[in-house]
């Protein structure tokens, strides 16, 4: 938990970092027409960032960061999402989604209640039913081919 940070300084630094990243990735051989607008935008972004940095040093806006609820739960939820996104390509949509949703539900539920095997078994069936519902809607009704991976 970070408390009472100077958000102007943080925002200005991020803006400046992004401006520099975009500026140094400009291909030197690119035609003027294709880069004219991005160059102008990078300069505007850098200008806004400088103004934010100056404000951060002179009249900073301070704000509490990450002070709502559990940051660990946010980090683990993010990890679940990314693992889920990557696993779809390897395990297929159905298997990856059942595994990810079941694991995520179980993890998030620990914040509110105690779990036992019978509850988890019921939840597994609910999750399989839910994923199968979406899977069938997308593949059969909307004709969207979902990734098959090593299973189906």
């Amino acid at each position, binding site marked *: 938990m970070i408390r009472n940070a100077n958000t102007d300084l943080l925002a200005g630094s991020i803006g400046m970092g992004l401006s520099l990243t*975009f500026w140094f990735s400009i291909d030197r051989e690119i035609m003027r027409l294709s880069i004219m607008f991005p160059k102008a*935008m990078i300069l505007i972004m850098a200008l*806004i960032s400088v103004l934010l940095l100056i404000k951060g040093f002179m009249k900073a806006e301070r704000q509490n960061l990450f002070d709502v609820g559990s940051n660990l739960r*946010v980090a683990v939820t993010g990890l679940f999402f990314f693992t889920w996104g990557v696993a779809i390509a390897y395990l297929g949509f159905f298997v990856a*989604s059942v595994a990810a949703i079941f694991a995520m539900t179980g993890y998030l539920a620990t*914040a*509110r209640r105690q779990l036992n095997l019978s509850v988890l078994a019921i939840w597994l069936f609910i999750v399989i039913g839910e994923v199968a519902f979406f899977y069938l809607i997308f593949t059969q009704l*909307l004709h969207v081919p979902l990734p098959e991976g090593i299973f189906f």
Partner: protein
Amino acid sequence: METFFLALAELADPAIILIVFAGVSAGLFVGAMPGLTATMALAVLLPFTFTLTPLYGLVALGAVYMGAIYGGSFAAILVNTPGTPSSIATAFEGYPLSKQGRALEAISVATVASAIGGIAGVLFLLFLSPPLAKLSLRFGPSEYFWVAMLGLTLIASLSEGSLMKGLLGGAIGMMLGTIGVAPIGGETRFTFGMPVMQGGVEMIVALIGLFVLPELYNMAAQGRTALGEVTVDSKEKASFWSVVVRVFSKPGNLIRSCIIGEIVAIIPGAGGNIANLVAYNEAKRASRHPERFGTGVIDGLVATESSNNVTVAGSMVPLLTLGIPGAPPDAVILGVLLLHGLRPGIELFTTSGVLTYAFIVSMGLAALAMVPVGLLGGRLIYRIIFRTPYYFLVPTIGLATILGTFALRNSISDVIIMLILGTAGYLFKQIGIHPPPIVLGLILGSIAEVGYVQAMLGGAAYNYPILRLFENSLSWVLIVMVVFSAAWPFLMGVYRRMQLRRGSKENEK
């Protein structure tokens, strides 16, 4: 006129009626859940419209939007927590009514007022859009550039937090929009050596990530969504017709609130969240008994609910005519329009007139559908909401989000980009850079780039081609508006300080 009647004929399709009712129910469900916004409802339900015809897809999204804004009033009235930011002021009068055992009456009033507001918004859209679309024909590259800048400064100054951070968010969005192939010039830029970036950041991918994921992270952090269940007195009766009579008994309040809603709706970035507060404040000022406000005054409820529902269709005036979303949910509608090859402007009202008018009128149908859905199904939907635990909700919305992103181009890379943008959006939000300016920057970026580059080409004969941007009188009108909207927060700050100083001087005397 012939186009309009053809559009009405299109709506005679029973499937449309079914879609309207399903959309309003789905929107009501999401909107009634504290923490889930109308934008999120549209972004999550977006993939289900991909394989529908353009009309069915747009009708579904319009109905979801209408239902979601109305749904926000349920939580505001029953548990004093606005379901969406558009219902903040609804809680001021709705919850006191609930505490007096008049919850059903409050819900009925909110339903009737929302339906009237929704229909008023449709009428505003029908009558204001065509002339504005014709005016857009006078817009050249420089004007479009300034319109894009105006949209950006307005959303930066009106959205939460500081103007500078809003502008930085807009600039980040514009830079994200420059990744990939240049609209004029045709070369690829900023791919960072990754071939997958050549296609750029798909607007809908960014929309889904930036609007949905931060909310899911918030829910995960708090470990909850809904609140404790409230009991509604089943013996309490609120006759529908008596409620209709009460709402119409003060037409001045209703008309004023609808006009306020429309004025706010036309301003890009200012949606129902601002309209409901302004309308409530004006209702209070105009009342003979302002001191009673906050104790369960029906006029206050009518003002907030009619004004916020006006913004649903009303905010589409700048969207359909100039391509500038009036409110964040409109960005999703714009994504669907572009997905089906429909470009905002006069063509929407001529070449694609039947589709456009059918979409507009369907929102009126959605407003009417809110009455039976809200009054008959509202309580059932609300019970389901309270019994859905957050630990099922977060992964389920995540599933719809991942599916929707994947279905767009059958691309896992899009899913990863969506997750990265959504996570970045959550982190940016912590330091005061909110998602709406980033998304608006992404949308307006391409309009601004085309306008800017074409203006520079047109000004090649000048010593300073940039002067082309300042040549026309219409450009100057827009420039003045840009400067005014950027200066607005500073002017308001100075005004507030002066008021405070005056107040303290009077106190000293």
